[in-house]
């Protein structure tokens, strides 16, 4: 009996121990396995730099630079009062602010908390010198993305922000990690996988005292691939400056190959803000602003083209032989369709106009007549021939396609028949027509090159590899047709009665067409579209100012200034 008590106690004790071992080794193995690994393996990351972005001349537009973050490890601070006060004084912020940052950001013991990111270099050095007096405060160097041109090239280049949970799930296999920044728009987004550096790191085995036992593995970090753009940084910056203070955009493109030389949109945003800690309010401001600074108006702004659309009608009429260069209509200043009256912009009338005159003077009545002769289906067909109604295929993506209406579209979309009055409006680029500035730049290129439509693009080289550009699409256009339209556009600038004469540049023959598109809620949109030099086109351009008034004033002035700058300060027109 007594020995039974004894052996029962022993049996139970052994069973309990067996259960304990089973629990630790079998049931809780995943936990302890991880803990053991964390115990002896340390990872030291070497972040891979993002590729540099250069302009066509090798000027860096986006680079990486060293920045200094002031961080604090609260557990290592010896005298909290003294340290916080000194730090507050040095950084020029209140002590309460420091304390609130620490409270908010504190995640794990001994994890450094950033108090102030990207501080002034002098401040960083002075804090580093005071290290002994400020235990627990560290200055950590970090490489950050540097958008050298700030607001002036932001729409094309785009910006970065921290990867979100969903993207991480999708991209984890491609080497993205939690703290990665990913491109959000423009080149940074479209070419993210090329630009992105490959993070390296070292896996160390350490012993209980934290001493290095051996290096388990190391991987060198790799810089992402550099990208060379077709942009001319100087022209880009100047164009952006010219648009400042207006809601406007400007596109300059080489019509021979589709290289975008400048693409500016205003208002703009500073991409540096998005990676600067503590500037979140500014970033939110960008997104919320009614002026929509994040919108790239050059590819996403869709507007009625107004009179610059007349060039498309001229092409249609000459190509279908519904009219010749000599076809003449008399402009009395207004046009009647039944009881409806349509005005010419010049109310006293242009008098008899042939096609060249009509383009030069931008006579509405001439094109009302021409449009009705062609009919909406033909106009629509030719608009689509020159690339309207669909994205141009530029390599930064997210482009809008605009809209070219026709009777079938209207029936399908609105269930209504097409009215003759709409044809009249359509003829001068009004009504339902919508185009983007880039699409019209493409039209300007086709006119400049006599039918060759290049593929607009911004990337010239990735690393050392030149990006293949598809051959220009050919829009069948006779030489006569091209010459007729071109000479009329030249007159628009050079003739004293031309609508675009304010764009004149000494020593540069410009062919252009103005546009003043009626817009709801305010002044009309101002357009100016053209190419130069007229006889050997090297630049095709569009300037568009929202509610800018007369195209021949607001937009032509800007275009002229930029062209003069291009001629004087760049190699583009040589």
């Amino acid at each position, binding site marked *: 009996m007594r020995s039974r008590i004894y052996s029962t106690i022993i049996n139970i004790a*052994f069973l309990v121990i067996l259960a304990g071992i089973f629990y630790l080794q079998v049931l809780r193995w995943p936990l302890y396995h991880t803990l053991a690994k964390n115990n002896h393996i340390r990872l030291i990351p070497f972040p891979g730099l993002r590729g540099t972005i250069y302009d066509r001349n090798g000027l860096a537009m986006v680079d990486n630079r060293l920045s200094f973050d002031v961080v604090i490890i609260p557990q290592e601070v010896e005298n909290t009062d003294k340290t916080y006060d000194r730090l507050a004084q040095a950084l020029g912020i209140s002590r309460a602010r420091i304390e609130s940052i620490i409270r908010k950001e504190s995640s794990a013991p001994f994890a450094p908390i950033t108090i102030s990111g990207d501080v002034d270099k002098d401040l960083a050095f002075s804090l580093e010198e005071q290290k002994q007096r400020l235990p627990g405060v560290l200055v950590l160097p970090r490489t950050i993305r540097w958008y050298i041109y700030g607001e002036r090239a932001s729409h094309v280049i785009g910006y970065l922000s921290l990867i979100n949970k969903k993207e991480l799930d999708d991209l984890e296999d491609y080497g993205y990690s939690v703290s990665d920044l990913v491109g959000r728009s423009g080149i940074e987004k479209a070419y993210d996988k090329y630009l992105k550096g490959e993070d390296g790191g070292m896996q160390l085995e350490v012993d209980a005292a934290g001493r290095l036992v051996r290096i388990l593995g190391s991987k060198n970090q790799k810089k992402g691939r550099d990208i060379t753009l077709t942009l001319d940084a100087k022209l880009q910056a100047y164009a952006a400056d010219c648009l400042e203070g207006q809601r406007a955009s400007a596109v300059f493109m080489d019509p021979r190959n589709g290289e975008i030389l400048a693409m500016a949109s205003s208002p703009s945003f500073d991409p540096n803000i998005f990676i600067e800690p503590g500037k979140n309010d500014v970033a939110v401001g960008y997104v919320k602003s009614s002026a929509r600074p994040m919108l790239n108006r050059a590819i996403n702004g869709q507007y009625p083209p107004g009179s610059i659309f007349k060039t498309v009608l001229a092409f249609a009429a000459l190509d279908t032989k519904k009219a010749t260069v000599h076809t003449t209509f008399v402009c009395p200043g207004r046009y009647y369709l039944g009881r409806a009256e349509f005005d010419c912009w010049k109310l006293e009338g242009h008098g008899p106009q042939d096609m060249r005159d009509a383009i030069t003077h931008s006579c509405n009545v001439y094109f009302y007549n021409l449009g009705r002769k062609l009919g909406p289906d033909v106009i629509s067909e030719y608009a689509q021939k020159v690339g309207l109604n669909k994205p141009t295929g530029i390599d930064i993506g997210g482009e809008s396609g605009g809209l070219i209406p026709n009777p079938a579209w209207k029936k399908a979309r609105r269930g209504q028949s097409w009215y003759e009055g709409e044809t009249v409006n359509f003829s001068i680029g009004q009504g339902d027509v919508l185009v983007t500035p880039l699409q019209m730049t493409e039209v300007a290129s086709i006119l400049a090159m006599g039918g060759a439509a290049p593929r607009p693009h911004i990337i010239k080289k990735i690393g050392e590899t030149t990006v293949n550009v598809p051959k220009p699409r050919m829009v069948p256009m006779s030489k006569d047709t091209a010459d007729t339209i071109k000479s009329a556009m030249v007159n628009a600038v050079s003739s004293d009665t031309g609508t675009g004469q304010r764009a004149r540049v000494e020593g540069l023959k410009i062919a252009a067409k103005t546009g003043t598109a009626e817009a709801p809620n305010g002044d009309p949109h101002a357009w100016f579209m053209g190419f130069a030099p007229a006889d050997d086109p090297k630049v095709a351009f569009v300037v568009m100012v929202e509610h800018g008034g007369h195209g021949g004033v607001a937009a032509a002035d800007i275009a002229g200034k930029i062209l003069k700058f291009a001629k004087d300060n760049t190699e583009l027109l040589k």
Partner: protein
Amino acid sequence: MKYNVKSKGEFDYGLVLIVAVIVLMGLFVIYSASYQKYVLSGTNLSLRQLQSAVIGILVAFALFRTGYQRIIDFGYYIFGLNVLFLVLVLFAGDMRYGARRWIEIGSFAFQPSEFAKITFIFALAKYLGDIKEGIEKPKALIAPFAMAIVPILLIFKEPDLGTALVFVPVLFTMLLIAGARLKYLMILIGSGLACAPFLWFFLKEYQRNRLMVFINPNLDPLGAGYTIIQSKIAIGSGGILGKGWLAGTQNQLNFLPEHHTDFIFSVVGEEWGFIGSAVLLFLFYRLVEKGLRIAETTSDIYGKTLAYGIVTVFAMHIIVNIGMVCGLMPVVGIPLTFVSYGGSFLIMSIACIGILENIKNKRKVF
């Protein structure tokens, strides 16, 4: 001894085999646990352990030939001598790890406290055998308690709480088997538990901390709780199959303190996994079972109490040691029988096997 009694002359080979396997496993584990030391200084602890094992076998053989009855006759004197050494160690002992536990004679050092366990058992067995049914009187319990309290206090003073505590279950088991009244034993256990809180004031700071962190190891994860946390990580991370011999990171990279002595089972767990731990635990269980069988089948009251005392020492060391490295019990530093590195304890343990075999051998035939 009487002439008309003939011994059966049995020998339990299975018991010897089990012990041999456990000791051999222990040698491998010690080799791994002290591998870094071996690489750095050339000190091969498993070789030293093997030497101790050989000494232990010789001692066991000598005791087996001598016969337990003859030793019991001298039980009081041997115990008295051992107590003298325990006094001596407090004054002239060699200080290691902040405790005076070793007596050095030339190059040979030993722990009198380890031998005190067995000499105490011999002395108590003699007392219980001599007094026979007299143990039912409460007065008869005074002497056993006095015999136990002397070494307990001396060892506690070294300090070596774990070893001191082993005397308590040994005392109670032997009294229980000898036939002491359950009522009195219960009263004693009850009053002992009631006094336990006061013991708190006699504990050293580090011993208190160990008890505190047993309740919550994260109280002081880098201090007192560190050992138990790291030990659990070592065992848990071994998983089912273990990380392999010499491949335990917790062990080899020194995350585990005392890994060749008190925490040797963590190394078994880490490197040999659940399978290794369970096999070792099973061997221990068989060992205890066989010991109990010998104790049970012995009618001689001297031999019976002696065997129970020895089995209790084994069982206590096994259960408390593994229990503490797994976090099931507070950390009281006691070694794992036959496995932990340590000469005195190994010699004593193997010697005890010799005694057990002798008890079985001398079993009376009816």
